[in-house]
């Protein structure tokens, strides 16, 4: 069966510090991968998606970037965090031509 991992679970970072969140998927190959953010009291905002290694599409202009160095690894990064980057970050995968996306446990990021 497929599983998706995210780490860390929680993170507190000062403004201006770098960020690296990692997501890995097991039990499937060539998945589509997604990064979402849920800000306080808001819905799920798609940040990035990837259909293959090195292929990244950005949905909204922002202070973040994404990379996919391996088939089942998706990384969310920032060089300098802003206060507005605080939120709950979710990684998801889909595959096989089906629209269902399956989410990881999420990372709670607080920027102080």
């Amino acid at each position, binding site marked *: 069966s497929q599983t998706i991992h995210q780490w860390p679970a929680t993170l507190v970072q000062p403004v201006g510090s770098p960020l690296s969140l990692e997501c890995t998927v097991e039990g499937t190959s060539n998945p*589509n991968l997604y990064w*979402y953010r849920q800000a306080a009291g*808001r*819905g*799920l*905002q*798609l940040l990035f*998606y990837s259909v293959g290694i090195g292929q990244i599409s950005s949905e909204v202009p922002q202070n973040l970037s994404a990379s996919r160095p391996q088939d089942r690894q998706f990384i969310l990064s920032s060089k300098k965090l802003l206060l507005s980057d605080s939120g*709950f970050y*979710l990684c*998801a995968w*889909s595959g096989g*031509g*089906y*629209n*269902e*996306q*399956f*989410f*990881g*446990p*999420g990372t*709670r990021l607080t920027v102080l």
Partner: protein
Amino acid sequence: DQQVKQNSPSLSVQEGRISILNCDYTNSMFDYFLWYKKYPAEGPTFLISISSIKDKNEDGRFTVFLNKSAKHLSLHIVPSQPGDSAVYFCAASADIGNEKLTFGTGTRLTIIP
């Protein structure tokens, strides 16, 4: 522009009764719709979906209804149980295989024992 709207941010229902969560969309290209359930500090879990070629899909206590002409879908939970208390998101996709989803802002459902 919010293409998928859940106009009720919260809903309270007595245990055992029916819970009805609503969702409206504006993009006529959407042809596949999904409902997700989310507990605090966890990722959303997929509940049920429906293709635009159907107007109803049922899975146990969960039924999703789609009214394409009104661009409206609803999730019915019968009977409601305390474990159903969570935030529910509807989502829509414009192309099967595209797999990009547009999510609503969510409805917090509270089941009252």
